[in-house]
């Protein structure tokens, strides 16, 4: 019986020891004189099961997880067993057929349909799973027709601001210029987010394909992926993928014999959260300090090196490949209201089953956290959820029934952002979280505007005084004033939205801020 073993090589699987599992399988197979191929796939994004070992036998993929090296001999024995009692199904780590695992089967995977299926760098595998079909379609279309497809799909930017991608592309297409650029924002700085990383590590050709399509759509022949330096694994995989895609003719000169060139390069960030903001990112790409630019001019008109530039998030560009492959109508049929398509929810923090969960917009936060997450890792009750990264509000239980839809979240002064959900149990100190929000802003501010640069530092001091009960009433007023000033007087969302987590912590979790508890008043 020939067997193929799949062991993921994405950051999280590696961080949980998947390399030593792979090594153990190699040596155990040898010792037993067994044949077997080992493929290092990307992760499926079910991180709570990593390292997830998949074994392909007779065309079906059986899962075991989470696997430690010491589990390997037992698993191999079960696979070769003819005794009914010791067959794989009786192994304690046996998960059944991987595509039938509830957590995966209940998702609506478009962008992540290929993640974890095979070797992320194998182009044949990518093509076998409909890869580069979107690009092939795009080559046959006029630029305007590609832009129209994106507009019709209703796709909005997945980086946080949710701006309609098609409208941005139209502006770049309409702006005259010999040189235009496609820039992929792969700075993924928000805590609780890792879907960009998973896409780049598990299905890098999809991003490459999306960027090449964007190039055809607006007339750009050069792309840059601005990748955060905190992602060494993604860096390695992307560089190899670009090299192979270039050799195969999907990048470089005259891509797919279309007469169009598209060159692509990865550039590393240098540990600055603010460089995720698109204008700061462009400054950084130009080799400067990452100071946020005033808008206008829009990057679509005067972007990188002053040229018309598309800046899109990794997942936005990934969705582009799907839309061109399956059609804008199919994509648009997912979702609710003005939030079309699917959202890659990232479930993180103190949660039992964390991972990437791709679903059509409209599911509630509670359905995700309870239905997929199955409660906290610690087993204690959930107390607060932070959605949308460090600039997102802390949500108390009364708000967990909000559907994941950009407008519904805006209505409760919260945001979906890049789709990260961070769960906290009842041991969390919400005053400490509010203080951290201010501290983070102080550390990461680009320094251009006073309310953000100075305000955040003052915010930390004021929260400290409130918690220590020093001149409490006045300091509470001061904190509110400070939040108002930051919201109104900041050039970008760093200073402008840091008040969101602070205010929500103060409003919904007042009892953590010292002083007399309100109930005793």
């Amino acid at each position: 019986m020939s067997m193929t073993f799949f062991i993921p090589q994405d950051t999280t699987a590696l961080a949980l020891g998947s390399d030593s599992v792979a090594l153990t399988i190699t040596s155990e197979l040898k010792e037993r004189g067994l044949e077997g191929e080992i493929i290092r796939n990307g992760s499926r994004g079910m991180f709570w099961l990593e390292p997830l070992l998949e074994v392909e036998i007779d065309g079906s993929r059986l899962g075991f997880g989470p696997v430690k090296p010491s589990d390997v001999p037992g698993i191999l024995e079960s696979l070769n067993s003819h005794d009914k009692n010791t067959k794989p199904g009786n192994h304690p780590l046996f998960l059944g057929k991987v595509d039938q695992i509830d957590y995966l089967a209940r998702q609506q995977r478009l962008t992540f349909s290929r993640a974890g299926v095979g070797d992320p760098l194998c182009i044949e595998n990518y093509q076998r799973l409909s890869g580069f079909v979107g690009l092939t379609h795009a080559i046959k279309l006029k630029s305007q027709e590609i832009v129209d497809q994106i507009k019709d799909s209703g796709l909005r930017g997945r980086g946080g601001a949710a701006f309609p991608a098609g409208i941005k592309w139209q502006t770049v297409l309409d702006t005259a210029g010999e040189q235009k650029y496609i820039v992929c924002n792969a700075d993924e700085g928000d805590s609780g987010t890792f879907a960009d990383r998973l896409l780049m590590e598990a299905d890098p050709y999809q991003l490459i394909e999306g960027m090449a399509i964007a190039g055809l759509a607006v007339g750009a022949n050069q792309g840059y992926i601005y990748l955060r330096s905190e992602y060494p694994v993604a860096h390695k995989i992307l560089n190899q993928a670009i090299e192979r895609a270039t050799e195969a003719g999907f990048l470089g000169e005259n891509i797919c014999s279309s007469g169009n060139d598209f060159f692509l390069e990865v550039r590393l960030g240098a540990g600055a959260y603010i460089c995720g903001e698109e204008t700061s990112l462009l400054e950084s790409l130009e080799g400067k300090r990452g100071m946020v630019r005033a808008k206008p001019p829009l990057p679509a008109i005067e972007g990188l090196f002053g040229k018309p530039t598309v800046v899109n998030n990794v997942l936005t560009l990934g969705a582009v490949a799907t839309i061109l492959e399956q059609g804008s109508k199919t994509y648009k049929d997912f979702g609710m209201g003005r939030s079309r398509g699917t959202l890659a929810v990232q479930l993180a923090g103190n949660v039992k089953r964390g991972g990437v969960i791709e679903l059509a917009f409209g599911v509630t936060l509670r359905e995700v956290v309870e239905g997929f997450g199955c409660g906290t890792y610690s087993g204690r009750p959930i107390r607060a959820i932070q959605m949308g990264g460090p600039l997102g509000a802390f949500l108390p239980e009364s708000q967990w029934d909000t559907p994941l839809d950009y407008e519904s979240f805006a209505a409760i002064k919260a945001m979906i952002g890049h789709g990260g959900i961070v769960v906290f149990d009842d041991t969390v100190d919400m005053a400490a979280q509010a203080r951290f929000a201010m501290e983070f802003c102080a550390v990461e501010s680009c320094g251009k505007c006073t309310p953000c640069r100075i305000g955040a530092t003052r915010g930390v001091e004021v929260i400290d005084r409130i918690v220590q009960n020093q001149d409490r009433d006045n300091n509470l007023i001061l904190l509110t004033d400070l939040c108002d000033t930051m919201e109104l007087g900041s050039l970008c969302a760093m200073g402008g939205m840091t008040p969101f987590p602070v205010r929500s912590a103060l409003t919904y979790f007042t009892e953590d801020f010292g002083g007399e508890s309100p109930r005793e008043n």
Partner: protein
Amino acid sequence: MDKSANIDQLIEQFKTLPGGLLPLLRAVKHAVGYIPDESVPQIAKGFNLSRAEVHGVISFYHDFNTSPGGQHCVQICRAEACQSMGSRQIEAHAKKSLGIEYGETTKDGKVTLQPVYCLGNCACSPSIRINDDIHARVSAASFDQLMSELCSPVTNDVGAKK
């Protein structure tokens, strides 16, 4: 090795690259371990910038240290998802057991401790990074284990392991 000659070579290599200053600084850091203050005039000249501009770029980014660090860089994730899983305790434990604060290097020159804000491993927090390896679900005990592996002769064998 002559540091400045080496840096001159790198400047030659990167100065014509559009937006080449950040890639250059990364390459210098890779080659020397940090960005030496003495290299600023050299870099400024090569890139046709003022020294103040080059200095401004170096100081803006957390990654560009201007003094030598230890043999190994250990980063502890301080961001929210890791906090929810007890990273504040890991942080306190690391500082205490290594006897250093963030930005400092142990007396034996082995370890420099740095904060980091998210490593993209937030579903299996708390996370730390040691050089280019990320570790998940770190506890005080597993931290100590990792540190003792770092300082044992096996791993110091000129990176023979991996």
